């Protein structure tokens, strides 16, 4: 090929190729980024019925603001009248028969702003030390922000010795400003059992 023809032969710009290769690499990362992004999105919008999984700090904060709100604002602003809500408890696991994971009461009629305590029972009939993770979910999902748990077995993993039977406490309240539309809420727990692995997992 003569030099003239080589000049005429059009070549791709390397800067374009670099950009075109970089873009999919970034998109690969974006695929992974979608997970925290969804979590942040659900957090902001309160979708998905997800609770804070590490709530002691936030729960206390919310309670603190809550009490200020209820005590000081009571006189000046609109008065918040507590109303009653029926709270149902359900439990589930992959092997419901095996683990015997049940709420002590399946239903409570509670008043907003007041603190309540209830129990869930869990049994480990196997011969192994088992570790249980509980995943809570509330429906309707938008009500999640109004339910404040000060003590919950879902805050940390539960380790059960062979044959052990535990009553796990749950202390919670519904915020004062829970809308009246919420007349009946369902709080569901699903437990996942894994064999207890090593001390590395003990907190």
């Amino acid at each position, binding site marked *: 090929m003569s030099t003239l023809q080589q000049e005429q032969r059009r070549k*791709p710009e390397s800067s374009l190729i670099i950009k*075109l290769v970089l873009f*999919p690499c970034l*998109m690969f990362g974006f*695929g992974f980024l979608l997970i925290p992004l969804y979590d942040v999105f659900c957090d902001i919008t309160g*979708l998905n019925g997800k609770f804070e999984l590490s709530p002691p700090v936030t729960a206390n904060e919310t309670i603190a603001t809550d009490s200020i709100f209820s005590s000081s604002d009571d006189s000046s602003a609109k008065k918040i009248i507590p109303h009653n809500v029926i709270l149902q408890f359900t439990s589930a696991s992959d092997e419901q028969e095996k683990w015997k994971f049940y709420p002590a009461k399946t239903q409570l009629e509670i008043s907003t702003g007041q603190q309540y305590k209830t129990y869930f029972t869990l049994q480990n009939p196997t011969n192994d030390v088992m570790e249980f993770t509980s995943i809570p979910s509330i429906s309707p999902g938008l009500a999640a922000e109004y339910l404040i748990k000060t003590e919950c077995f879902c805050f940390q993993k539960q380790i059960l010795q062979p044959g052990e039977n535990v009553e796990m406490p749950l202390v919670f309240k519904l915020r004062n400003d829970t809308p009246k539309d919420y007349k009946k809420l369902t709080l569901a727990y699903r437990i996942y*059992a894994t064999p207890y692995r090593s001390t590395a997992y003990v907190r």
Partner: protein
Amino acid sequence: MTDHQTATTHEHSAAPATGIKRWLYTTNHKDIGSMYLIFSLVMLLIGGSMALLIRSELFQPGLQLMQPEFFNQMTTLHGIIMVFGAIMPAFVGMANWLIPMMVGAPDMALPRINNWSFWLLPFAFGMVLSTLFMEGGAPNFGWTFYAPLSTTYAPPSVTFFIFSVHIMGISSVMGAVNVIATIMNMRAPGMNYMKMPMFVWTWLITAFLLLAVMPVLAGVVTMMLMDIHFGTSFFDAAGGGDPVMFQHIFWFFGHPEVYIMILPAFGIVSHIIPTFARKPLFGYHSMVIATSSIAVLSFIVWAHHMFTVGMPLVGELFFMYSTMLIAVPTGVEVFNWVATMFRGSMTFETPMLFSIAFVVLFTIGGLSGLMLAIAPADFQYHDTYFVVAHFHYVLVPGALFSIIAGVYFWIPKWTGVMYNEGMGKFHFWLSFVGVNLTFFPMHFIGLAGMPRRIPDYALQFADFNMVASIGAFLFGLSQLIFVYNIIQCIRQRGCPASPQVWEGAEGLEWTVDSPAPYHTFQTPPDLDKLQYSNGHN
């Protein structure tokens, strides 16, 4: 034209190598295009045979031919092979053959990468097919491979599946980089963006979609791999993950993927309809804008595939309305094709027949898509045969018909020989009847409540299933006519084709000889001298 022809024929010296080395080492866009097209034809026949096995089992209620486990493997592999092995490589093959010729470039921008992206595919699909012979069987979780079916409950062969999806993804991304670089950097002088043919435009947009979403698919299978082998919990609720997250990430890839499989089809029929209507394409600018808007909108509608997972009302409404919005640009495209035909001097050669069938039947598929987009109604239709009918209408008489139309349209240019028109028409009518016989009854059995992906069904669905199975065999076997026609062209049995081939054909690819010389446009074509027109005003 003649000046230019003589210029191209004597300037190159590199003739194709002989034997297997020609195909292994080739960097020629025409050779690679041919390999892609033949590969996708083979995959079409393999995936089609699986479809026929599925339809045989569903010919009657009860389990006759296979066990549910094998049935699930067949539905999974059929989906994977047709999507990633047949439709996508066929479009890439056409892009290889046509884009350099259409924009007046001597070859693709990155010829060696081009060779590599093709040669990855036989290995990827060889690996997918080899899982059939593995202990535990082939993947059985459906082509959407929802976790935890594809993680906790998957057969061991899922790891091979993941690896082959990675390979396919790399191949597609490299192909897309190549297409974009070719279109952006190698156009003939004077061919600005708004002078490019529609096929080039639709492929440019498709290539950007590929770059954006194939890595997300690679990401999601990587997460699966890590969940299965490295103890992470992306999709495992026990470890704090979320199985619904899988569906969100998958469909973030999956919905643009749907448009990856249909936008090049829009490009193909936008060439064929003006040619046989002997009129310029109506509304070229609106066509470009509509195609781009479809591509942009495709990123914000993914969750309409998962209305039933338990989304909040706001989400349901958002995804419902944004999905319906896509009907607007799609309607523009359909309107433009019809308006192009309006008062045209139409003739009905095989490519035109397939294109008209594309317009009509794709519209039916689009309308059933609109029905599925209605969130409250979707709870009834979800996971039924109505969905199967919908996506087969957009993919078979949609994408596949456009590919068949394109092959009939350009094969005289590729081989230099006219295909057998009588057999082509016969192929069309058998396919047209077969495809409708197969998929139309599925609308009704779906609305009546027959679920997807089941090997056995309730008695009241028996008659329609029998009709669908008969139609499937009619459609499947009629493709053998297509194969025969192609082989005859490759063997040079038929009348030699003129450079322009079709009376109304416009565009640079019709200015070179038939068959197209091994090297074309070594010197850039002079658009003014050729009185270049891309088929629009």
